[in-house]
């Protein structure tokens, strides 16, 4: 009987371990955002918004901001479609605030999407912040193949290092609460 119990417990432990390994693949709060190159947005307005010097692949830490909100989405994902107006509202709230406008930027990364698909999503939902492509799932793989939409809030330190303040799948819920959460966590 004791033997059976031992086996039972070890199987439970195995399951637990396998689950935690699965989760560990995505960068968590407190960790750095993967130092991976990102395809630049197509239009100049978006490049200016991110504070990039030229239209060239870039790293997240090169974005001119204290905080970057990264949304991993797909044009094909119904949840992302539903979330689009919510993120637009968040963007508007940031832009309306003189103190936050230059400090918090939003970047959407289209997992497995082509430029055409990302453009369709952008125009369909009248999205004013940059959306970039991740056509071959390169970024998506580096962040543990998360489900979409997935949000990261990343702090960019003055030394160019990054620290994730928020890492979670699903809706950001109420934009003003989400923004307050960022302000509190980042000490803006």
């Amino acid at each position: 009987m004791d033997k059976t119990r031992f086996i039972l417990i070890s199987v439970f432990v195995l399951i637990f371990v396998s689950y935690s390994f699965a989760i560990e693949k995505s960068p968590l709060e407190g960790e750095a955002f993967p130092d991976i190159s990102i395809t630049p947005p197509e239009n100049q307005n978006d490049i200016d918004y991110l504070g990039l010097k030229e239209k060239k692949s870039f790293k997240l830490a090169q974005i001119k901001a204290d905080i970057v909100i990264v949304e991993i989405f797909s044009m094909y994902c119904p949840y992302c479609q539903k979330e689009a107006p919510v993120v637009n509202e968040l963007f508007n709230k940031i832009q309306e605030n003189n103190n936050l406008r230059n400090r918090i930027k939003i970047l959407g990364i289209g997992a497995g999407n082509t430029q055409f698909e990302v453009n369709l999503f952008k125009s369909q939902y009248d999205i004013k912040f940059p959306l970039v492509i991740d056509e071959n799932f390169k970024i998506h793989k580096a962040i543990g193949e998360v489900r979409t939409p997935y949000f990261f809030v990343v702090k960019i330190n003055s030394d160019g290092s990054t620290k994730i303040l928020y890492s979670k799948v699903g809706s950001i819920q109420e934009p003003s609460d989400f923004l307050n959460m960022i302000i509190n966590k980042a000490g803006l």
Partner: protein
Amino acid sequence: MKKSSTFIIYFLFILLFLSSTVSGSFGASEQFKGKIFNPGNLKPIATKTHLKKGMKAPDFTLPSLSGEKISLKQFRGKKNVVISFVPAAWTPVCSDQWPGYNIAKSLFEKNNAILLGITVDNIPTLYAWTKEMGELWFPVLSDFYPHGAVSKKYGILRPDGVSERALFVIDKKGIIRYIDVHDINSRPNLEMLIKELEKL
């Protein structure tokens, strides 16, 4: 007592096995979380269709989700038709294919085209599955009975009874203008399809 613990152990091992296999996510939507069956990586294409560009598209009549029957020939002389066959409801890639077409309505309209979505599933399954996608603007047809008859007519019924992931573009005269029998494991990109529509 001993028997039941052995059973539990087997059960947990199966769980463990499943938890390790169901991991690839295809950039999958959070909407379908926990509801999508993962068949693993399948043989990309398992059939060879006899249909070719320039041939007349085989006619068919199928029941749609909304209750009405839809025939291909009802669009003759009126609209270009895109048929999107997807392998089955509740499978990874297709669950994220039609929602994309759902926001591309204007692109279809601009090219005077209607989209017909077809799977070999029955209507109740299609109902539950498409409900997860929100309101779809295009008809969804059930090729359930006789099983996969239309998929077979189009030469894309796989030996395991699901259809290929395939796109057919049919012009107003009923002639096939484009065929993409796609790797079942990946999603055809939208601009290829739209480009073909623009050529009509």
